[in-house]
């Protein structure tokens, strides 16, 4: 998978903020009660009645330049298959440096294991031949697109080529692999 660089493109034009992706992740990944790997962020701007609203389904950005990996003293946080950022609970000391180092607050400590955890891009599915992530699959508006950023013909690449997009906190220098379509 070395020639693959997974990323997500999320269409804020169609996302309704229903949080099916959140529930879809919780059940797929059996995340602990009251913790979630993805979440819905909404920003309303303006004054009634002249307002506009952005809705974003957010999760770990699998940064190309991931501070969480850099600060991890044990190597538990590492760059994994397909350019993703992964976590090995076996190695995690629970020092929480990665949590503090993530500009997106994407991580948490799983109380069951004491290890840090976060979105894995559903690597357990991808590696078993399931083509996509659980949040992408469930989304009723199909606002989430998942694929190989390095393949110019992939849907994600085409969307990025044809639509206006932005990433979150670009000046944090993390090179996130989540792209939001306007």
């Amino acid at each position, binding site marked *: 998978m070395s020639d693959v660089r997974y990323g997500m493109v999320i*269409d804020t*034009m*169609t996302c*309704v*903020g*229903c*949080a*099916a992706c*959140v*529930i*879809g992740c*919780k*059940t*797929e*990944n*059996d995340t602990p*009660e*009251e913790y*979630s790997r993805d979440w*819905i962020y909404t920003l*309303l701007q*303006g*004054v*009634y*009645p002249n*307002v*506009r*609203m952005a*809705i974003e389904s957010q999760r770990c950005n699998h940064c190309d*330049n991931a*501070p969480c*990996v*850099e600060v991890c003293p044990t*190597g538990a946080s*590492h*760059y*994994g*298959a397909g350019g993703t950022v*992964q976590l*090995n*609970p076996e*190695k995690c000391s629970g020092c929480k440096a990665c949590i503090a180092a993530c500009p997106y607050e994407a991580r948490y400590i799983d109380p069951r294991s004491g290890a840090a955890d976060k979105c*894995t891009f559903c*690597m*357990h599915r991808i*590696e078993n031949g399931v083509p996509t992530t659980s949040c992408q*699959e*469930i*989304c*009723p*508006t*199909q*606002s989430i697109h998942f694929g190989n950023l390095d393949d110019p013909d992939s849907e994600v690449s085409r969307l990025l080529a044809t639509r206006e997009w932005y990433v979150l906190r670009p000046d944090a*220098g*993390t090179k996130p692999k989540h792209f939001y379509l306007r």
Partner: protein
Amino acid sequence: MKRREFIRMTSYGVAGTAALSGVSSDWFGLYGNPTADPGTEGEQVIPSFCELCFWKCGILAHVKDGRVTKIKGNPKDPLSKGHLCPRGAGGTGLLYDPDRLRRPMIRRDRRGTQEFEEVSWDAALNEVAENFERIKSRYGASALALFSHGYGGNWMKHLFHAYGSPNIAAPSYAQCRGPRDVGFDLTFGWGVGSPERTDIKNSECLVLIGSHLGENMHNTQVQEFAEAIRNGATVITVDPRFSVAASKSAEWLPIKPGADIALLLAWMNVIIGEGLYDGEYLSAYAYGFEQLQEHVKPYSPEWAYTRTGLDPDRIRRTARMMAGARPATLVHPGRHVTWYGNDTQRSRAIAILNALLGSWGRKGGFFVPSSMEIPAYEYPGYLDHEAHVADRPDPSQYPLADQVLAQGVCNATIPSGIGDSRIKGWMVYGSNLPTTLPNPEETYRAIQELDFLVSVDVLPAEIVGWSDVVLPEATYLERCDEVFTPAWREPYVAVRQEVVPPMYESKPGWWMARELGHRIGLTEFFPWEDSMEYAKTRVEAAGLDCDLLQRDGVIVGEPGPLYFEEGSPPVFYTASGKIELYSQRLAENGFDPMPTWHDEEVEDPPQGYYRLLFGRSPVHTFGRTTNNRLLSEVMEENGVWVNRKVAERWGLRDGDRVYLQNQDGVRSTFSAPVKVTDRIHPDAVYMVHGYGRKAKKLKQVYGKGIDDAELITRYKTDPIMGGTGMNVNFVTFLRAEDVEAQQEAEGSSVGTEDEVALGVGRDFDPVLNTRAAGKALAGIGAGEEVAP
């Protein structure tokens, strides 16, 4: 050192680290990084359909070690197309809800106090059977009424037909879709059905009158909504609240609540005045254009401005947008339309507007659905019902109602109420009447009058606390129900199967109906062994392979022509056989033959009060999911939306807790946090329905947030079909600190459920709808004291 430099430096570092840890690492082979698998993939994956709401999406339930681990969409299913809304995905939260009803129960104390004794199924069913027979022999079969909502209710409806009672009501009519279906039927001779025949995905201009798609999560509609947006459709949303749909719209018209008919008439005025309507279509199919033309002349955008608060130019502009895209312009009929008591007329106006744009039966408007022919199960004919249905003591009332009115049945239970009391017993299946019917006090009063009340539910909801016998049903994942054959884009049949065996001592509805049937001598109506055999018989009678159906969850047939232009015949089951812009039928019954604006129909909020509006959260279905632990992680309490300026006037900060008190002095039982927002009209406050629950055994949601229903002490009944308009109540704010301090002082807090419910010491007036108006105005003095 600048942050960027640091990052760059460290990113060189990364290479180094990689190398280093490469060396440093493979010590003791402790360095491998296997991919962790949460292990939720099912050993079996069983197709079925969802019941978290009434849309019935096809699902795939993953079962591992006898547990349902996750629920996904069934890609073969025409409604879910492999995708689910959050509620459907959270179905396990219902299946494994620790508060579920586990055993049959019989009341051991007065109604409202949850004093029950768990009994055997035999004891419970015998008790029910005895009461059914007693009521029948003493008052006749129609003295027993059924309230039913949800697909499993079919078994109970069958039982009631066999038993001989016509009093079968559902809150999805007079509290929901009724006015829309009557309005459209009056106009086109067709209802829009459920799932609606709206061709959203192909529409080029989508007009939403309140319909808050995206919060209203009827899966397929939301899927098509997104598809329409992707296809570049223009969306126009009319809503006093900046809904999610509004945020996706080219035009958001923040209308004054209740003024929609004025806007619709003004749109007609522009479209007809500027000759933008579909002339051919109208001359071919429509009746009464001339009358309509005359009728809408006075309703100019300027005229509408004073009613709606909407800029006349925007009204014109949006009218032209609609006309520009016709016939692919869909003015969405909405679904929960029981708002102001003039709802049939508003729905008529929507239907007529669609007719002017020629969208009925056209691509991007309303398609022509088809459904799969599955022969009914062969039974001996049902007994003849008594001619008279109890919901309308005076036959001239609500002449155009084509289904039983839940509120009417409720009233018919109260001697002092409208008409004499001819209802003595209720069975309530899957409907939490106290939070569903307007003015709960009326409902509680009716319940107190009953000889017998049996409820069939999965959770210890409020209605359960009021029942004499409680029958715990197995959830949709634990039972097989009637097959589902909706009228949709393509004809198909779907099956609901038992994914896991029923937990505790819960039983499926079909089993209860059958057991009861056998006990009250209706054996011949229950010849089948179980629901699967029943389903198999029907499916195979249609020449379909039931095993295939069980494997795939659905069998999809060939779609017929979807539009007139595709050769679907333009038939209209109206008296004139045409689209009735002018309705003779309404005229004959003494109603406006064409939608007309009456200023007195919508009054302004009294000083210091705000119109109480309510709607949906995408993650919840009324109160039926607010106890769902999984879904509550996303939303566990409802807030009160207050316009920022209003909040400033009241000195309310975001998150401040308030109680709401309505025009009749009724105060909410619990408090909720204020959501200070620029997303709502200053005349109104908004809440998500389904919170403020009083049933203590609902441990997750008990006492969380405010129940809109208890503040809906007034409702305006639609004179045409009896729908209960519920957006006619006004509330004011009471700071939680003050209220609770006062409660401290009086030593009173939340009492037992019946006390809470009956709001001890409140004077009760069963005929509130119109009379309460005077009362409301009387209540305002108090309002002014608290008003800033």
